[in-house]
Every structure is written in C-alpha cells, then in structure tokens.
C-alpha cells in the first residue's frame, strides 16, 4: 500500500496544508510519496523531501503546470495515481478543483473533506454543513480523497530525507489557459492556519469599521475573517469568508464580532477551541456555541478589548 500526497504550493514554497495532508496519509498507513506539480518547483520538491515520514518525492516541472490548470494536471495525476492505493490532496480551492477530475478519469468515486481516518478504507466526513458526520467505506481500487486540514495535526516539516525523482506527463491539453489573477495582500497570518481569528459580520456596518478588527487582530497576532453577510455587502474581499462555502478554520481562539451565527457560518468555525462572541443581540444563535459571550455594542467593546490586551 502506497499513498500519494499531492503537494500544495504557491510562490515557490510549500503551503502548510500539505503537512496536515501527510498526517492524514500516515493514519492510513503504508509508504508515503509526495507529488509536486508546477513550473520551477525545484525548491518546493526539496522542501517536500524534508517532510517527516515521506519516502519519495516525485516532481513534474513543466510550463503547462504553472497555474495548476485542472485540464493539464488531472491527466498527469490520474496517470501516476494508477500506481497507488490512495491519492490525497488538501481540500483547498486548488485541490477541490482538480481532484474530482482525477477521480472521474480513474472511474472511482471521490471522498471529499475527510476529518478522520478509521482504517485504510473507512473515513469520517461532515455533511449538511457540518450538522452530521458520516462514516463512509470505499471499495474503490484507488481511493481519491481530499483532506480537511483542520481535522489533522501537521507533521514536522523537517526530519525527512526523501529522494526526488522527476516525472513527466502529457503537458498542455490546449483546452484552457491562464489569463490573470488578483491576490489579496496581507501581512497577517493566513486565515486557514492562524492560531487566533477575529471575524466580523453585518454588525460592522461598513468596510471602514473593519479597521477596529484589524487593530485588534494585530495585537493578538490574529488573522481576520468575515461572515458571508460582510462579504456580500462589500465590506471585505471574499477570500476572507469563513463558512460552508468559504474557508474552514479551527483556531485556538475565534472571536466573532457582530455575527449572528447562521448554520452556514458555524460550519466554518465551530471546531475552534475557544469561541468568543460579541453581539448586542442576546438572542443571536452564535451565543449557543460561544464559550464566552459578551452582550455589548461592538463599537465600544472592541476598542476596549484592544486596549486591555
């Protein structure tokens, strides 16, 4: 039994989600190989070779793989994947994009966003926005799986010494091309990996008021998130959205400010260790999951909280 983990990387560096995915692979058991696909990914492959528990790194370096276009990547992964019992990738937007294409090419069902490994063929995953946990068993010859990274503790990034081997695929399918991207820039920690997250909702009233959350976050070394209401109202960009359709976070401390706590938002944060809610409506559903609730006007409470830290 050998497990193939597809590395997630951006700007020439490995993304920490890869370490959580390797942790899931270790629970499945067997040898673990990591596949690094992209253009100019030598440094990433070397980084991947150092991950504890990885026995081999395979690297596909080609201009056609530069922007992770699924039409180009899926045939490569499906081709290599036939040698493995399991293919795993983090459930990032990139993993969600190409992995089902790999599964369909291999003619197997995919298991999305596992949060637990019971055995090599049995996994736990949330359904209905996290309101139920399903235990599923797969009889597929190759198990194609995406991993919810908050469900697994990261393995050590150092300590391994795997060999790097170069592989090649068919390259460009000619069906799609990259036009451009617009990335949100921030000095704060990455939302999905932050230890502390401060999130704002409709109660923030406008984008300008998010400055209160930014300065509180900077004091705590936290990332800033948002509810769908805040994103739809244009207060903040959509990559800050936490929830069923946004990012899933499970930090040590989650501070929800002016967020009512709809089912879809809770789906993205209710596995946080400690939840704090600041809301002036004491009936808000967020108080049913909050460890510490403060019924107060956020425009008074947030600056006061920042001052007292």
């Amino acid at each position, binding site marked *: 039994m050998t497990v193939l983990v597809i590395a997630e990387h951006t700007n020439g560096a490995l993304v920490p989600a890869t370490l959580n995915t390797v942790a899931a692979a270790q629970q499945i058991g067997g040898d673990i190989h990591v596949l690094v696909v992209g253009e100019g990914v030598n440094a990433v492959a070397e980084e991947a070779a150092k991950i504890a528990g990885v026995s081999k790194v395979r690297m596909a370096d080609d201009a056609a793989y530069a922007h992770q276009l699924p039409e180009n990547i*899926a045939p490569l992964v499906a081709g290599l994947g036939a040698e493995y019992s399991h293919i795993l990738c983090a459930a990032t*937007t990139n993993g969600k994009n190409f992995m*089902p294409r*790999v599964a369909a090419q291999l003619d197997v*069902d995919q298991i999305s966003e596992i949060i637990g490994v019971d055995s090599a063929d049995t996994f736990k995953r949330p359904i*209905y926005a996290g309101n*139920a946990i399903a235990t599923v068993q797969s009889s597929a010859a190759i198990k194609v799986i995406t991993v919810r990274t908050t469900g697994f503790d990261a393995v050590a990034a150092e300590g391994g010494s795997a060999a790097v081997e170069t592989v090649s695929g068919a390259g460009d399918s000619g069906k799609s091309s990259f036009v451009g*991207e617009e990335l949100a820039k921030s000095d704060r920690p990455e939302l999905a990996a932050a230890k502390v997250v401060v999130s704002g909702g409709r109660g923030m009233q406008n984008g300008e008021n998010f400055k209160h959350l930014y300065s509180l976050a900077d004091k705590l070394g936290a990332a800033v998130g948002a509810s769908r209401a805040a994103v739809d109202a244009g207060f903040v960009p959509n990559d800050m959205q936490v929830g069923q359709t946004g990012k899933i976070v499970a930090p040590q401390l989650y501070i929800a400010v002016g967020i009512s706590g709809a*089912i879809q938002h809770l789906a993205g944060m209710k596995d946080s260790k400690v939840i704090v809610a600041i809301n002036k409506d004491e009936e808000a559903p967020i108080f049913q999951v909050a460890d510490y609730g403060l019924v107060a006007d956020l425009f008074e409470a947030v600056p006061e909280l920042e001052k007292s*830290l």
Partner: protein
Amino acid sequence: MKVLVAVKRVVDYNVKVRVKADNSGVDLANVKMSMNPFCEIAVEEAVRLKEKGVATEVVVVSIGPSQAQEQLRTALALGADRGILVETAEEVSSLAVAKALKAVVDKEQPQLVILGKQAIDTDNNQTGQMLGALSGMPQGTFASRVEVEGDALKVTREIDGGLQTVALKLPAIVTTDLRLNEPRYASLPNIMKAKKKPLETLSPDALGISVASSVKTLKVEAPAARGAGIKVASVAELVEKLKNEAKVI
C-alpha cells in the same frame, strides 16, 4: 448556443437537520425541500445569458426522485425552456450523477454546462469537475464572473488567495460560486406558464448508465455538541477569563 443547467433537490438551507436515532442518515421526512442555492445561481446565469442573446435555449436537468420535478418546474418558472428528469429512487453518488449528465450532454450537445459548485446536503463539490473529465470539456469552477467571447469563455474564479481568471475553449463547464449573481424570484404568471413547458423523464437504464457506487455510508452521527458557554458582563471579565481560564491569550 444551447446551455444545459443541472439542478438538485436538497433540504432547504434554513432547516436545522436532525440525525436519525438509528444513525442510518439524516431525517428528511416532512422536512422542507428546495432547489440547492448554488443551482439557483446556475439557472439565473443561464437565463441572463439568454436575455443577453448569447444563449438560444436553456435546458435544465435533474437526477433524483420523481419529486425533483418540483425543482425543475421552479427552474422553468425562472426562465428555462425545458426540463429533463433522470429518475432514480435511491441517492446517487457524484460520479453517477456526472455519468448521467455526460449521457445527457451527448444527447443534447450543449455549448455550455452550468452547475452549482456544491450541493449543501452532501457538500461534495465534485460533479462539475467529474463531468469535465468524462466529457473532455475544460472547467471553470467556483465562478464569480462569466463572459462569452466568441468561441471562448472567460471565467473569473474564487480561489484561496483572491481571484483567478482563466480562458476556456467552448464547449465548457462552469460551476457557480455564491457571488456570481443574485437569483430572481419566479412570478405567479411565470409559475403558471412553467406548468405547460415540456418536461421529459428518463431512466438511468435508458441512458445506459449504472448508479452503483463504490462508497457506502456506514453510519451518520450528530457532531460532538459543544458544552454550554457563559455570558460575561464586561470586557475586563472577558479578558480575565481568556487569560486565566481558557489560557488562549
């Protein structure tokens, strides 16, 4: 061009679902069902393309129980031209749905297929991508903007760090994100008119596909409940609790 839209009947997004006592699944008896919100956005986008004169016909398809006709009628009331129901009694996997859609695509030859990015019941986020692999079409997933430019499609996608734009050769597949558009409401006259629009029912056998799945659900449980929290009276008390009791700051 012809646009094919796939819609799914799911539990209404506002319903707080309950797990059955025997852990066999989620209790859907007497629960309000609706069109999956991401599918509504897909229908809206197709109808807008028709209103712009880009699309000539909008065909809406659902794979599911006979009651899914209600969701197809809803899509027809929103502006789709005709409906196809691939009727299956049991729940089918994303791969089986993708195979059924592939058969419908072969039959209808659409230039564009629009699906929601995920269904809010299974939360799989797979079907559109799988249809891409099976049909050989390129995919623009998690779309927040779609523009047809001649024989190509420009799709702006929501990705982890922000937005990405890709160009796809038609025929292509798009899966919708929430911010693609704001779906309209069906008016009463349109709901009445939708009753007269054609709706064809097919069986998986007629399409020559099997709905067997390699994944079996062993049990469904309620997630671990969070212990009841406390309300604090002041910011000072909150900080004190976080420092000394929870020890998280």
